[in-house]
């Protein structure tokens, strides 16, 4: 058996006096597709930042690809799309190509130029998200949803084994959202990329994900998707004060 991609063992984190996460255990294996759900302020983004090494846990241990997170250097194995990706300044002078290429910054190495095939890689990453025609456009001239796809391309360009996305569909309309999630599903099934997706659209992704983690300061539930379906109405009642009726039931086999 190969090492898990992510292992959190009894991890806690606090911002000053506010406890954000308590005693988190989580294991993400190769090829899995996780949905991380929870109400606003429940610590989802904090969990993501811990995984990426942007913040250090107060206690507990985080292992990435079998290595202690603080010793983990191969960051190009993890693609990241943050919740605030399109918070950048619209007047920033950069082409889509330049932005996507910057996803190779770690792979290329300090003091080195981008590799000779960087342009090809940009093109194929852009066509994976259906944005190949926009390569030479200014990033600020795109719509919010288009920008978000560019940031996914930036995350994909280094051929990551793990994709971490924090509410990536902010600003994407319904129609594109579905096709966006389908794209994630394809990446997961066809390329075997493991995905950790923070989202509020549980229903939309329910057909695609293999596992669900419900976060509210601590993890209330984590496990295969079918089990989550069984307990779902209780979890939702507890969080949102009312049971949400699901339109369809996806009893997806864990085919990953």
């Amino acid at each position: 058996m190969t090492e898990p991609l992510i292992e959190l063992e009894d991890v806690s984190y606090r911002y000053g006096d506010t406890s954000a996460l308590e005693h988190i255990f989580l294991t993400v294996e190769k090829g899995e597709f996780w949905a991380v759900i929870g109400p606003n302020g429940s610590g989802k983004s904090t969990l993501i930042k811990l995984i990426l090494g942007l913040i250090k846990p107060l206690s507990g241990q985080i292992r990435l690809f079998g290595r202690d997170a603080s010793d983990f250097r191969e960051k190009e194995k993890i693609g990241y799309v943050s919740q605030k990706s399109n918070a950048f300044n619209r007047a920033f002078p950069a082409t889509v190509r330049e932005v996507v290429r910057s996803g190779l910054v770690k792979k290329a190495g300090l003091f080195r130029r981008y590799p000779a095939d960087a342009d090809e890689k940009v093109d194929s990453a852009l066509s994976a998200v259906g944005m190949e025609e926009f390569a030479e456009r200014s990033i600020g001239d795109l719509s919010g949803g288009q920008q978000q796809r560019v940031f996914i391309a930036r995350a994909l360009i280094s051929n990551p084994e793990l994709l971490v996305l924090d509410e990536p569909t902010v600003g994407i309309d319904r129609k594109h959202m579905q096709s966006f999630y389908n794209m994630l599903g394809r990446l997961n099934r066809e390329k075997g990329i493991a995905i950790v997706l923070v989202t509020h659209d549980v229903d939309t992704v329910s057909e695609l994900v293999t596992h669900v983690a419900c976060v509210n300061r601590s993890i209330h539930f984590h496990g295969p998707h079918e089990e989550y379906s069984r307990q779902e109405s209780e979890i939702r009642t507890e969080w949102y004060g009312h049971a949400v009726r699901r339109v369809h039931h996806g009893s997806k086999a864990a085919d990953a």
Partner: protein
Amino acid sequence: MITAIFDYEFLQNAFASGLIIGLVAPALGLFIVVRRLALIADALSHVALAGIAGSLFLSQNVIALAGLNPLYLGIGSSVAGSLLIDRLRELYKSYEELAIPIIMSGGIALGAIFISLAQGFSTDLVGYLFGSVSAVGREDLYTILAVAVITILFIVLTYKELFSMSFDPEYSRAQGISSRALNIWFMIVTALVVAGSMRIVGILLVSSLMTIPVAAAMQIAKGFRQAMLYAAIFGELSVLGGLVAAFYLNLAPGGTIVVISILILLLVLGGKKLVASRNTARNEEVETGEL
């Protein structure tokens, strides 16, 4: 003028220094502008003033230091100021901009003290405040050249990282780029360029050469590389035009350089508007034609 350059060494020094600064200051300035750090260049130049005034004062009062080139203490204090700003920004994390007025007023205060302590270096000082065509020596030129080599090496070697950090700081940290180390180097190089540009454009106008050509370039550039290219071209045009005008009209080059760079900015803005209104006019024509 062309022949004058061959005749006078001081003109060679001024023009060579100007050409170097006209390239380097806007190129680094692009990163400063997109990272919203324009005020830092201003703060550092005022710290450099303290160094220059201190050096002039020392030269007056300590015989061993009579021949000291003020540029060195200017560079030294500006680099020290950049490290201080970096520390203060760490200290007041959620009020990063607080560091700038503290350092800036500190620089002016020290400068004021040295200036009032010393007597009679007003002409020297005016040269540092607004730039000078005649006062640039060979030693200045070589120092400026060294500053430029360091700056260009820094930009070329860390271009990827600088771009990534400027565009999306969180993402570049998630990629494992050490923003802390890069930031400190960035501040040091900025301090070097600020101090190096001072001889030509003057303390009070250094930050303009780092920002105005960039502002014009950002109006028309599509990408980052293109913005850097345009910024450098506009910088060179401003410095060349400004030095020629300063020499013939006997004016302070800082003033003429900055006025020309503003004229370029206005031309770019006007030209852009013209193109845009032409385009809409053409579109309207097409639309009415279709009716």
